[in-house]
């Protein structure tokens, strides 16, 4: 099958290319002309289409017309709202227009985001699935969520086109080696310092290998046509558990900040805003409408890809965490696993993983357990101190 991947030079793109090659597909990679991934892609036998989608290209339709499936991954967060808009919306519009003008037929798999859901309208602990209503006030969310919603609208224009099948995949928080930090943890305070907001929230994590596998499955499986899938791993872990796995591999300092206090500050600023007639606006990181979607506790239903496609995530949470954080794991050897020089230096210095067996046992119980995970009770202060010192205090 001839498959084109947009955003192939990115984090997810590299894993998708690998998965397609593993399946024996004839792969094309649409990358920006300046992309540093071009040489690596060509070495792997991938046909490189150097195009910047942010700019209309009259020949684009002809250059990509021969592909039977397109995986549209290209997205990002720019330096300004307009840069984000151009990357996510205008680029998609240019691609869709090129396909429409040439009368392209095939399967278009669009990578959207969990960010499109209307989290603020949901009660805590609600189940998020593909039927969850989309954000009703996109303009109040951050630029990324706003533009991803607009991007979906643009993609849906393809749905009416004869011979075109559209699948939309909404991944949760994609992680893997090279993308360890997650915004759902809180805020980065420095290179190795994380401001942890709360700690007990289960994150809608999606290991990058699983995202790539689902996207490739969607391109191949006719049952995916016209469907929407959430890409989220089963057995979600909490912010604390994720950070603990990371801290075993790297000396990450965590500054804890109580979620209740953080929310109280946000609410106080909102009150001030209302009192003085809307003439103030809290900064993004204190705007509860923007922040609450990543801070509120929800449950995530990962079942639809399995039900509709018969697909199962190939990488368990234990293995995903090992590949992400453990030195010498398989991802480290992949061409897309390139990490900046300063990070490589840091990794050389870090201490060996203390007790990989403990991490394994901690998550295996959940992985093997078919029942939904139990809510985690916060560890006692003594247990936390002991864990920080490296003592085994049991599960």
């Amino acid at each position, binding site marked *: 099958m001839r498959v084109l991947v947009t955003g192939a030079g990115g984090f997810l793109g590299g894993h998708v290319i690998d998965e397609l090659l593993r399946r024996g597909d004839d792969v094309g990679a649409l990358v920006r*002309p300046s992309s540093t991934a071009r040489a690596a892609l060509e070495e792997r036998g991938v046909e490189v289409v150097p195009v*910047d989608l942010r700019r209309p290209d009259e020949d684009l339709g002809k250059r990509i017309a021969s592909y039977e499936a397109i995986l549209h991954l290209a997205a990002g967060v720019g*330096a300004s*709202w307009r840069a984000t808009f151009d990357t996510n919306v205008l680029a998609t519009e240019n691609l869709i227009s090129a396909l429409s003008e040439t009368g392209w037929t095939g399967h278009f798999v669009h990578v959207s985001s969990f960010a499109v859901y209307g989290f603020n309208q949901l009660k805590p602990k609600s189940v998020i699935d593909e039927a969850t209503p989309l954000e009703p006030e996109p303009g109040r969310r951050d630029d990324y969520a706003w533009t991803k919603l607009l991007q979906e609208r643009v993609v849906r224009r393809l749905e009416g086109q004869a011979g075109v099948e559209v699948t939309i995949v909404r991944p949760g928080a994609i992680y893997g080696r090279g993308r360890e930090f997650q915004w759902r943890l809180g805020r980065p305070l420095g290179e190795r310092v994380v401001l942890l907001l709360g700690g007990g929230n289960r994150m809608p994590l999606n290991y990058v290998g699983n995202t790539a596998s689902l996207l490739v499955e969607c391109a191949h499986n006719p049952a995916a046509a016209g469907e929407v899938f959430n890409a989220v791993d089963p057995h979600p872990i909490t912010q604390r558990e994720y950070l603990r796995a990371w801290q075993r591999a790297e000396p990450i300092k965590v500054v804890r900040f109580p979620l209740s206090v953080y929310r109280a500050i946000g609410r106080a600023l909102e009150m001030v805003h209302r009192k003085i007639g809307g003439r103030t606006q809290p900064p993004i990181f204190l705007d509860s409408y923007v922040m609450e979607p990543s801070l509120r506790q929800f449950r995530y239903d990962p079942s639809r890809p399995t039900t509709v496609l018969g697909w199962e995530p190939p990488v368990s949470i234990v293995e995903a965490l090992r590949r992400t954080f453990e030195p010498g794991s398989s991802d480290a050897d992949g061409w897309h696993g390139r990490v900046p020089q300063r990070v490589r230096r840091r990794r050389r210095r870090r201490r060996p993983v203390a007790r990989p067996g403990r991490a394994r046992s901690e998550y295996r119980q959940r992985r093997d357990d078919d029942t939904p995970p139990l809510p985690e009770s916060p560890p006692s202060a003594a247990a936390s101190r002991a864990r920080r010192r490296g003592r085994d205090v049991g599960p």
Partner: protein
Amino acid sequence: MTRVAVVGLGGIAAQHLEKLNRLRGVEVTGICDLSRTLVDAVGERYGVGPGFTDYGEMLVRARADVVHVLTPPQTRVELVLRALECEAHVFAEKPIAPNFAGYERMRDAAVQRGLLLVENYNYRYMAAVVGALEIARAGRLGRLINLDVTLSGALGGASYSDPDIPHFAHSLPGGAMRNFASHPASIVTQILEDWDAVAVHRRTLKPGFPGSDELRALVAGDPVSATITITSHAKPTRLFVSLQGADASLECDAFAQRLHVDAGSPELARITNAIRHGVSHLRSSAATLRRATTTREGYFQGFESLLEDFYAAVAGRREPPITVRDMDATNRLVEDLLAEENRV
């Protein structure tokens, strides 16, 4: 109600639309850009519109009293002239034109029709800068001798280094530096009405950056001289104004809203100045914290006051906040700063 149209929905448009939405007596009746998707999305987000992709159609249908022209400077002259032909006042982003000749065409057309044409010098409207200029004009510093203006952190954004879609500013005469030069120039020209010579040192600190990303200039005048520094790699982003007079000196850190005057009798100066410094730091910390937690204005602290004054002038309630004389001097100084013959 003053009817306003906005053309050019780039990054800066968000600042204009947010502030226009907050101004009393102002209604945005049209927004325009080339992309229909962009126009619709921005209209929906800011609750303004209708949206147009044809500028001529917007000018007719929006029946605007004021047009905000926010497109790249290379396109601005024609758009401003068309707005003036429709008897609309114009508020234009900086730099108002790619060169002085373009500015003159717009200025002459506006003066001829008795319409307002204002270039956005919002840094000059920041509270600390306004305070500094008032102190200098009131004579509290004595006879003025020198003025230094430093803008650091300019040209630092990723958009200026995008190799695939180069920033529009790189193709301006004088390079991307023209996009920033009017900020310090608009402050210097409040003190120096004229100057004898300009000597400029420019260099490129970022490897591969198109054009220069640092400018240091001496503006030699009589009795006052000035220095201007625009640097992209010194952090943090800062606008620093220093004024030296025969009786006292003044320092102003505009984004931090800090302003203090060093003066006093020779015996007590070290003590009184130390107290003044402490008080000004406390005040500026409180003001910065307040703004940082209640606004998203970032480096646009003075923009809202400038717009308020501009719309008051449109309504005939006051003089224009930025006069033709201000724009003449600023654009002339920008030309001198970027002229090849002034490079040393």
